């Protein structure tokens, strides 16, 4: 089942992906420009239902890796994402039937489309996070205990690396991160190839459509002068956690993460309370007046109260009027194995996961 991904879906995809990025994953602006140009040059990408994959089809899982700040100078070129896929095909000696993104949150939502537009392959309507997370072991494929190798990594200077084997997902993360840093803290990667059966069993399905529909709901609300935050909550079955104004942002970089906290002072119904949003690249845990009230893997999104646009952990500023919402996590992430991989303890918070959704 293939359906052409229409040009007018690029903008809502970017908006939806930025919201699902839960504060991380990088602003999709440059990826959006790239995809628009490929479409302007005549490229078209088909979107493929994951259930239409044959069990032994091969699927490439692509991702841009590295620091968003470096991306703002390097302006990632789609040919390198495509090259990472080709390098992997050469290595495994098989042709990929389709391409998917490792994460639907942030700019990587568009990475599969960029590679697919260059290579003329379909994009699978799925990802491996249903949101954004910083590390390789925080994927549905890792939760499913699937093999994490090989991995191909491509640099703009004709440097191509294949990690043929790694002892664990964490080792794969450590080794590939090292290589990525060496080539300037940005690289195009093709993760361990997946079979159609693995994608059907362990992929998080229909997340491209989900992001597009979410973006459309926001655009539609803006057009109707309705409340875009309400539109997001309605569309995703989410919960509003807090509304207020950012009164403090503290950031520090440790262990390759941007960690810190944002403090929001309540207004309207939340007057008199404070919400602290702790982050590690993405928003991780929300504390209301000191008590944890929402946490990963539930999606915590910081939204501009008026426009409904997502606000990233790198760009949140004092004085912004914000609404914090929680959106339901993909079911797999709330299983015991999911919580072990991406629950609060995976980010160093000694808290039992409690979903805000019954």
């Amino acid at each position, binding site marked *: 089942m293939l359906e052409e991904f229409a040009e007018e879906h690029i903008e809502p995809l970017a908006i939806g992906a930025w919201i699902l990025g839960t504060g991380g994953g990088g602003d999709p602006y440059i990826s959006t420009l790239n995809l628009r140009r490929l479409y302007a040059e005549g490229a078209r990408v088909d979107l493929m239902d994951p259930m239409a994959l044959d069990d032994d089809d091969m699927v490439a899982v692509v991702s841009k890796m590295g620091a968003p700040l*470096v991306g703002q100078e390097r302006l990632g070129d789609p040919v390198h994402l495509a090259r990472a896929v080709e390098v992997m095909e050469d290595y495994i000696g098989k042709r990929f039937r389709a391409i998917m993104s490792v994460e639907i949150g942030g700019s990587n939502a568009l990475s599969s489309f960029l590679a697919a537009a260059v290579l003329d392959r379909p994009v699978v309507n799925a990802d491996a996070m249903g949101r954004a997370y910083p590390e390789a072991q925080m994927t549905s494929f890792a939760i499913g205990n699937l093999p994490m190798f090989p991995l191909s990594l491509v640099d703009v200077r004709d440097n191509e690396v294949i990690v043929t084997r790694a002892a664990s997902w964490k080792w794969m993360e450590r080794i590939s991160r090292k290589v990525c840093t060496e080539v300037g803290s940005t690289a195009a990667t093709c993760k361990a190839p997946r079979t159609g059966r693995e994608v059907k069993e362990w992929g998080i399905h229909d997340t491209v459509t989900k992001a597009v529909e979410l973006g459309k709901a926001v655009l539609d609300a803006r057009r109707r002068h309705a409340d875009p935050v309400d539109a997001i909550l309605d569309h995703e079955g989410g919960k509003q956690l807090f509304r207020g104004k950012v009164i403090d942002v503290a950031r520090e970089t440790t262990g390759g993460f941007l960690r810190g906290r944002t403090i929001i002072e309540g207004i309207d119904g939340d007057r008199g309370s404070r919400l602290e949003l702790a982050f590690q690249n993405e928003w991780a845990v929300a504390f209301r007046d000191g008590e944890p009230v929402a946490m990963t893997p539930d999606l915590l999104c910081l939204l501009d109260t008026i426009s409904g646009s997502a606000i990233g952990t790198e760009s949140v500023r004092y004085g912004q009027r914000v609404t914090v919402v929680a959106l339901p996590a993909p079911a797999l992430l709330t299983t015991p194995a999911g919580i072990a991989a991406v629950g609060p303890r995976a980010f160093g918070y000694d808290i039992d996961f409690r979903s805000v959704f019954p």
Partner: protein
Amino acid sequence: MKRIGIDVGGTNTDAVLVDGERILAAIKVPTTQDVLSGVKAALSHVINAPAAAGIAVDAVMIGTTHFTNAVVERARLERVAAIRVALPTGRSLPPMCDWPRDLYNAVDPMIVMVHGGHEYDGSPLVPMNPDEIRDAAMRIRDAGITSIAISATFSPLTTECEVRAAEIVRSVIPDAKITLSHTLGRIGLLERENVAILNAALQSLGKTTVQAFADALSEIGVTAPFYLTQNDGTVALADVAAANPVHSFASGPTNSMRGAAFLTGLENAMVVDVGGTTSDIGCLIGGFPREANNIVHIGGVRTLFRMPDLLPIALGGGTIINPENGAIGPRSVGYRILTEAKVFGGSTLTTSDIAVAAGIVEMGDRDRVKGLDAGLVRATLARISEMVADNFDRMKTSAEDVPLIAVGGGAFLIPDKVPGASEVVRVENAGVANALGAAMAQVSGEVDQVFSGMSRDAALAAAETGARNAAVASGAAVDSLKTLEIEDIPIAYLPGGARRVRVRVIGDIAFG
């Protein structure tokens, strides 16, 4: 020190003559189509004022909207060559790929991408190839283009490629006017490059504008050096400013904020400048406008450089009120207020009519708004108060109450009590706040750079030294320098404790 400050606005051209902190003469004349005759009229008025008799002027400071208007109108721009030193990166997104089509066509660029650039840690991305740049320069020369913008990957951290490329271009085109992106912008190649290209497209206009001002001054008999006011509330010598017209883009609101600081003596406060169509809310820190640390669109182009952080709101003296439901704006009668507002004999209900009906201000014929429903007047005023309070709060930088200075022709719309404001300060002479702001301006220097492999203290110190050197190069007196802002942000993912540090220093103009 005797100075003349001139602010050329969309509606009025204001001029003041000051001696130290004393205002000797002030005038407001309509801005003329050619701009210059208005400037000349204002100048000769203040210079010939009785209080100015026998006074030698030390400096003239001019704030002008010439350059912004050219970009917005897509007019008076020149053809530009854009050289980007970044291959093999960025090939898919060439310079100006995100510009509005009409502005792109108005600039009609020749675009060249060559190999080179650096990484965040200062190592070369790939070697730069001088022959590639020489070839490009010859094609640019053959096309008759003399204004060139050069950008390179991570040039704010390592300027080498841009500087070297400029030398090569100049060896082929000796009279080239070259803008290097690192001298204007910050990290973010597209946005920095956009600023450089806008700047390159304004080179001829910069020269002719400054020449025209010079001619006007000498016609009036003023021989003092003259300066153009800049986005950050400082001034630059006119010849230096002519090379960087983008630094004058926001001089209007900046001058009015500086003027507000001067007139009230408040260095840390919020300012609301109420015009006919919109108001701008800004924040004074140490007497200067707080800088925007985010993307600012100019004529539809994304930029990231030294601009004041302003929040425009659709509230002005001419903002139209819906008589049915009391909805405010966003449309305004603008400069047609003198014919269209009810108190001036027109038929459109405006914020000014509401203010007259409520007895807040006197203008026009009050009898013409006598019949307005008192409930509507009250409700509209309440809604205006809410609008001001909400936007004021949005721009505040701390939870504590701060003073709010109200300036501009529509300042009467700002209520006496605003939640979060310790007081609402109104000033006399608010009408010439802009020109005063220009007259009192100082010189600044800035560094915005990523430092790695050193301690936080060492990084801050290195940035401060760089900023001081930049200020002195722009004409500041060394002994007057003071540090205005220090800000640092650690950078995710990058090793070596990389942090982006921004430091700005300010000083008095060094004369003689």
